């Protein structure tokens, strides 16, 4: 799915990376534990999280994660936005729960990492 399709499906707002709406995502991983995310060896995995802090973005940067969905209506700060822009990370904000976001993406063909 493209970021555009994902944002429409989840009624999510693209906060950063509006210019990369056509970026394709095939796999996703849901976690609030950044140490878990840092064990993933796959690249191009989208992160679904309810943890809205600088470490989520730093983790994405280190783990080559191209896009993050902040679920549970979490909003990102200006500082986080700057870090996302600096590292070309696409950020979506969504009011649905992590479970609902994951279920909807799964039903639409996004694969789990394991």
């Amino acid at each position, binding site marked *: 799915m493209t970021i555009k399709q994902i944002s429409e499906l989840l009624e999510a707002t693209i906060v950063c990376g509006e210019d990369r709406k056509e970026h394709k995502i095939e796999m996703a991983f849901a976690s609030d534990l*950044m*140490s878990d995310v*840092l064990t993933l060896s796959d690249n191009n995995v989208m992160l679904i999280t309810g943890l809205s802090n600088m*470490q989520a973005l730093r*983790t994405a940067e280190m783990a080559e994660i191209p896009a993050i969905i902040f679920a549970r209506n979490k909003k990102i700060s200006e500082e986080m936005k700057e870090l996302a822009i600096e*590292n070309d990370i696409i950020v979506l904000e969504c009011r649905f729960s992590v479970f609902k976001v994951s279920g909807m993406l799964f039903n639409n063909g996004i694969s789990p990492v394991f």
Partner: protein
Amino acid sequence: MHFEYQIEGGNFTRAGFASSEIKKMMKQLNVDMGVIKRTVVSTYEAEVNVVAHAFSGTIYVDLDEEKIVIQLQDQGPGIPDIDQAMKEGFSTASSAVREMGFGAGMGLPNIKRNADDFQITSEVNKGTNVKITMFFNK
């Protein structure tokens, strides 16, 4: 090439700054992306450990054509039992650290898994030294 970065204990907003700089530098040198990822994931977990568990620290980075050596030296409580600390799931992290998305006892094992060479030494009430070596062409 030699670089140094300071780490401030407890400063979670800044945690990852040094790892980010190292990543940018390695990208500029056209190091293989897989090697970069393993390097910065390891360095980042080690950097977070200094922020989470120690008072302050310094990262020393030495780089030549064949390898990058990253040493994190901190002033802090040290680790009384390194074998125990290396076990997956062992953690003394505070709830504040867990709220940041860390503190599941997965950092050190993950560093060991990713690094080509990993050394850790520690002295209680003094501090901890972590050394990560990565080779570029293997």
